[in-house]
């Protein structure tokens, strides 16, 4: 019999970016809130300190900040006709854990999506015709919330973080130095762009010569010291080159630790409980009302936390798993296309391109930061005419070294022997003299790519693992090949470039063992129709109105860009609706 705690108004499952920003927006409401985090508490001081954090082996190679596969993994298969096998070690994607979640070890790449992303089906059919789009075999959907409705929340999150960048489009007016393709914004970024790397400067020259429109990548590793609207202070990035997979010791990366937790934890109405593994969302006998959650604490005691509102804000595919374990919503069946929970799982389609320079060209990749790129959007999204090509979607092309860490950030020309004297000669010749581009593209949903529960493998609490059925759709394979070719052209045009090479990750079969992106999306998607979505535009469950499911699990398909800014804009949009409407009148908001 589980121990019952005292009832609260809101219980949060997972305490990273999503939960902490919603909790922050609710601190002045007087609501009693409990945050349940499965991992450990951790703060900039004393947990993220320099130089200890500058440890490639521990954090980048051994992945110390990530979910522990010993206790909880997932299974993967490429198609419904196969048996899924466990992802025994993380590779392609790295779900974070511990207080702050992936918001601690993200790279701070701070983009908005584009207007068409939110109405993708309508926009693609309008431009290319229904026949063209239907032939692609995709299950793309409109989100049910237009970009303009989210614009104020994008702005709010950017100012909370102190995001560093240069606006390209202010209220429809194109701004020199910014991205001419970006969705219109109401005002400039809160802080100016980061300093440009040599790698980026060489790219800028080549891209400009080819007629493209290079601009500085927007960053939540700040260019200057900044005080945010809540009075929290951030410092300038020192370009240490230990960003993704690492925490920032310098208060220079916007994270829950620097911009949300300090506010939340000041509140006497908020209680954080760590090392609590939630295993179920409980409901009453009608099934339409959540009564709270059940969890196991660090000592293994089973506890029931009653609450008037439940917020799921875990790593996106864990949200989907929680709904399935709790039997909330109709599970998706890929054979019939019926059901919604697990439907429209998507990812990110990427490649790398490298340019090799002479030994007197000092690229200094170790002078890096998480979002220090110079990039172009000329091939992102729908920024070019796709009619001749037979695919939709696109990719940005970004020149950046987030660091120059020798175990993993050490690309060598094709044909280099993997070991021996030849390898050593190549490392000596090339380390520090290579340019890098990332080609980072859209991921379309298909009928066959989905999430459900595995029939065989279990976690440390005896519960079924999530099963992921995924491979890159042919549409996306064509897209990434096209965009990689464009990047290779730029690589060849970089001054001093002697040779170029590429590696495409977006190809079949999807290789879960090699790192690509942690932007898993979908499975609990947002929409206007409960028969094809799990949540409405406020991320409120259609089935259980006092349950909110926050994060990238809401995305019907994934856009070109890194998605933290977008999911936080959705979460702030949700927060407004809860504060101004739901609390006064609990019930369906749509």
């Amino acid at each position: 019999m589980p121990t019952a705690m005292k009832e609260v108004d809101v219980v949060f499952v997972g305490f990273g970016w999503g939960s902490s920003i919603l909790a922050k927006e609710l601190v002045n409401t007087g609501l009693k809130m409990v945050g349940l985090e499965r991992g450990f508490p951790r703060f900039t001081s004393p947990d993220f300190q320099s130089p200890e954090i500058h440890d490639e082996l521990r954090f980048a190679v051994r992945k110390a900040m990530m979910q522990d596969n010993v206790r909880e993994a997932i299974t993967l298969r490429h198609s419904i006709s196969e048996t899924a096998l466990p992802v025994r070690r993380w590779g392609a994607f790295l779900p974070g854990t511990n207080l702050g979640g992936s918001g601690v070890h993200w790279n701070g790449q701070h983009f908005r999506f584009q207007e068409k992303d939110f109405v993708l089906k309508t926009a693609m059919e309008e431009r290319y015709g229904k026949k063209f789009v239907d032939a692609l075999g995709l299950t793309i959907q409109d989100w049910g919330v237009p970009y303009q409705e989210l614009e104020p929340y994008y702005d709010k999150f950017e100012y909370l973080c102190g995001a560093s960048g240069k606006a390209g489009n202010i209220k429809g007016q194109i701004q020199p130095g910014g991205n001419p393709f970006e969705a219109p914004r109401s005002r400039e970024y809160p802080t100016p762009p980061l300093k440009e790397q040599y790698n980026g400067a060489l790219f800028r020259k080549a891209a400009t010569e080819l007629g493209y429109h290079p601009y500085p990548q927007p960053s939540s590793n700040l260019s200057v010291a900044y005080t945010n609207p809540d009075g929290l202070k951030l410092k300038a990035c020192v370009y240490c080159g230990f960003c993704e997979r690492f925490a920032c010791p310098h208060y220079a990366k916007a994270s829950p630790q620097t911009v949300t937790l300090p506010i939340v934890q000041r509140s006497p109405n908020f209680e954080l409980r760590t090392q609590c593994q939630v295993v179920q969302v409980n409901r009453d006998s009608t099934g339409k009302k959540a009564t709270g959650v059940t969890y196991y604490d660090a000592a293994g005691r089973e506890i029931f936390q009653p609450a008037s509102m439940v917020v799921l804000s875990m790593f996106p595919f864990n949200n989907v798993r929680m709904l399935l374990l709790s039997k909330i919503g109709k599970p998706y069946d890929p054979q019939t296309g019926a059901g919604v929970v697990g439907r429209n799982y998507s990812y990110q389609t990427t490649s790398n391109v490298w340019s090799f320079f002479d030994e007197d060209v000092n690229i200094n990749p170790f002078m890096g930061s998480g979002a220090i790129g110079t990039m172009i959007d000329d091939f992102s999204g729908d920024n070019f005419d796709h009619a001749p090509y037979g695919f939709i979607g696109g990719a940005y092309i970004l020149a950046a070294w987030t660091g120059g860490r020798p175990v993993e950030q050490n690309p060598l020309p094709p044909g280099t022997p993997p070991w021996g004297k030849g390898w050593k000669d190549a490392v000596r010749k090339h380390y520090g003299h290579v340019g890098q581009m990332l080609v980072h593209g859209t991921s379309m949903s298909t009928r066959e790519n989905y999430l459900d529960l595995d029939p065989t493998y279990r976690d440390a609490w005896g519960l079924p693992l999530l099963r992921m059925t995924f491979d890159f759709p042919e549409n996306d394979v064509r897209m990434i090949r096209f965009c990689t070719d464009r990047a290779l052209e730029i690589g060849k045009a970089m001054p001093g470039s002697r040779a170029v090479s590429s590696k495409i990750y977006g190809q079949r079969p999807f290789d879960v063992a090699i790192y690509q992106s942690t932007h898993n999306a979908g499975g609990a998607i947002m929409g206007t129709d409960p028969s094809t979505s799990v949540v409405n535009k406020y991320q409120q469950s259609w089935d259980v109105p006092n349950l909110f499911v926050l994060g990238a699990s809401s995305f019907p398909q994934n856009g070109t860009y890194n998605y933290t800014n977008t999911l936080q804009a959705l979460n702030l949009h949700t927060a407004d609706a809860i504060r101004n409407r739901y609390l006064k009148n609990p019930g369906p908001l749509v």
Partner: protein
Amino acid sequence: MSAISRRELLAKVGVAGLAAAVAPKTSAEETVHSAETICRGEETARSEHENRKSDPTEGSESGETNYQFFNREEAQFIEAAVARLIPTDQHAGAIEAGVPNYLDKQLGGAWGAGERLYTSGPWEPTRPGLGYQLPLKPGELFHTAIKAINAELNKSGRPFWEMSPDQQDEYLHKLEAGGVDLNGIPSEVFFDQLLGMTIEGFFSDPVYGGNKDMVAWKMIGFPGAYATYYDLIDQHGIKFEREPTSLGQSHGHFIPDPNIPAESPHQ
């Protein structure tokens, strides 16, 4: 050279000769502090010793590894194999860098015991794109594979470490290509982990027992744990020649710039 105390050596050869004649250090005699007569060699030797004090995985004075995980025959295979994977030339190779020590300590520690590895069954052979699927933890994998290799090669009369370098390379290529069954382990799976961990041992921070004296970082010009480039990043193409630093060398936390104090933002 017979054992001789540093004090005796200083007295006999004088300071100028010390750099050339520094004997292997014995632990009892590290008390020479004569500031005026310290020459470059002595200073380097003393700071190396201090670095070594902060590196708990460091082996004995002569450079031999204290093996805790590999038995003698496994260690002989490992030493011979990594010497081919990253050979010695005008720069240190895997042996000088202490890669066998790194492997020994990693495989004998949490990583070898299966940290972050989902090992539950049932176990099926892997398929393209699905990664590692064996039930073996890294330590078990190495023990199993090396025993199988040593047993097979002993049968044909020539253990790996007695082969010529060319023969060793040929055998390693054979393991790499796959098709050799090592007591159930496909040889390419073992080879991948051996090569991957050798590169880690070469390039990771010396506190983990490899990359001794940061030889690998010095070879490529990677500055290590030192990490602040605010004033240099926009000096495009600058040759950065600062000596690398290791996690083991810090004395307290870095303050990257006294004008940017790392105070808590929530007072």
